[in-house]
């Protein structure tokens, strides 16, 4: 099967520092892929390169957009990348805190809707219909993450775990084919993590692919079909959870000693 996303020799330099060094990665449709590695390994930089926040110094990112073959997305603006079907969440929550929970999700619909200034002023039938669609879809997403009854509260007033879920809902509202989650379980309690696992599985069931950065190894092992391990900007290992678990290079990266066996 043709990969949904293939990254070849992705390199990112910040001045003299090479944050990413020729990273290769492939994601097939419907897969949950995890990207793990110690702090500072370059995982978030990798995300930022994929989503257009950074322009990579070298390499190619090819996205199989709607089955029409690979489209190079390096250096595209973040909003263009999102339009092509890559949506992300952030490691440090970046919700629109002074907007309501529902509006946060409605923002996600922005790139899938078209109404312009004149539509906004005159509220023609097409605009009204579009607006109703936005509200309907957003409510449905909120129901899915269990926040429908808090639709009109400010996003900043939600508990932490709910804020993380809301970020996922907001990303889903952009109708992605690949969802990038940057440490979605960070700071969650075990119960919340469990709910998050279920949510991620249900997203996978909808046919989306997921790329996941996560430090919670239990979660990574339970969820992932394929794991990539990074350290110092390089990919040091890849494989199924079991392959990665016993890979000496991975153990070394995490524990720092060669002769330790997990």
């Amino acid at each position, binding site marked *: 099967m043709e990969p949904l996303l293939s990254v070849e020799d992705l390199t990112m330099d910040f001045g003299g520092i090479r944050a990413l060094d020729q990273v290769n990665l492939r994601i097939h449709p419907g897969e949950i892929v995890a990207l793990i590695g110690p702090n500072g390994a370059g995982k978030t930089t990798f995300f930022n390169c994929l989503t257009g926040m950074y322009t990579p110094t070298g390499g190619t990112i090819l996205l199989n957009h709607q089955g029409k073959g690979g489209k190079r997305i390096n250096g595209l603006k973040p909003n263009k990348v999102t339009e092509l079907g890559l*949506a992300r969440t952030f490691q440090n929550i970046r919700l629109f805190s002074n907007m*309501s929970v529902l509006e946060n999700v409605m923002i996600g619909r922005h790139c899938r809707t078209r109404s312009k200034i004149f539509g*906004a002023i005159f509220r023609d039938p097409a605009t009204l219909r*579009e607006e109703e669609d936005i509200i309907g879809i957003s409510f449905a997403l909120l129901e899915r993450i269990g926040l429908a009854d808090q639709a009109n509260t400010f996003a900043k007033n939600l508990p932490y775990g709910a804020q993380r879920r809301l970020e996922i809902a907001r990303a889903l509202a952009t109708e992605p084919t690949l969802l990038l989650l940057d440490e979605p379980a960070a700071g969650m309690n075990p119960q919340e993590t469990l709910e998050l696992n279920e949510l991620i599985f249900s997203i996978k069931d909808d046919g989306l692919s997921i790329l996941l950065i996560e430090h919670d190894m239990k979660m990574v092992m339970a969820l992932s079909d394929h794991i990539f391990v990074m350290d110092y900007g390089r990919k040091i290992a890849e494989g199924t959870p079991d392959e990665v678990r016993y890979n000496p290079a991975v153990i070394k990266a995490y524990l720092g000693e060669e002769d330790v066996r997990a």
Partner: protein
Amino acid sequence: MLTAKDVRQALLIGLWFMFLTFPLLVIKVNTIEDTIIWRWNNMFIIGGVCFVATLALRSGRRLLVQKKQEDASLKNSRLSSRIRTHLHHKMVYLPLLSLVLLFFILFPTQFSTYQTTIMTTALMYVVLGLGLNIVVGVAGLLDLGYVAFYAVGAYSYALLNLHFGLGFWTVLPVAGLLAALFGVLLGFPVLRLRGDYLAIVTLGFGEIIRMVLENWSEFSHGPSGISNIPRPGLFGLDLSLNQSIIYTYYLMMLMVAFTIFVVNRLQNSRIGRAWFALREDDIACQAMGIDKTRTKLTAFALGAFWAGMAGVFFAAQNTYVSPKSFTFLESAIILCVVVLGGMGSIIGIILGALILILLPEYLRAISDYRMLVFGATLVLMMIFRPQGIISTVRRTYTLKR
């Protein structure tokens, strides 16, 4: 309920003020006779007053805190939220709205033309405030040069009328569009800027426009300005000065109504949401598929549009424009309207504009102190209600099934 600690603190504050005011209130140099007069009385008065005032303030505050704790048990007991829930009730706000409308409609018949002129000016600031609100309040782009667009509008009318004889009604939309164009022109170079940096560049832009108007005499008639600008016409009828003032007032009212209508609809649309998102977090906003460039430019253009139209009204009302009317102070006042009224809140900005423009006028009775009172109002306002008179209320949505 005053403790020894309070008394000690009050004593210290009294002493501190005695020390601070010493050079000003105690020492008096008689420059003619070269003698120094020591006014020790003043020092003790200051000390005493500060001591008593501190004690009073402290016990007052203590009482307030106690009261608040008692109130805390009653949910939603705060006045503002109580007012708000009442206002949202149709039975309340419809009669209230019609009353306010009636007041504004009858205003010129009940008051002198002087009052009407002042009210027209205040309404002009409502339009300006609502326009700047799009840029500052909604999209979160701090613009300190907003007056530039106001100037563009006023000079468009003055110059197009002078050279081409175009009338008020023709120029009104043209000036709006020209100002919007200037908004885009300003928008392009500042697309990458945020916060303080953006504020400085917009400040510079405002000054550039003013400088050009002041120095490019062949174009703008320089500092002497352009006079004899016609007032708005009414189907070619000859209006007396009084009639014309009243006519302008009603036009301005229509203009305000139009602005409120459009701005309200814009805020509650797809574009408005994008502006709010941009204000909240521009990185997340972009990651959610919003074109930051376009969103910023539309905010600048649509904000400037209203300033352009208000500028035409300004030129028509005064029949005269000169660069002196478009200084930084003007931008600052419009910004005050937005901040004082409540960023992003339309009703708040209307109130803000009315208070800020009318207050100094009606305070003329205490002429010497009016700017002092004005300043104090602003300071107190920002201490006790930093979110503005009326803070933004997010629209609530319900799902139609």
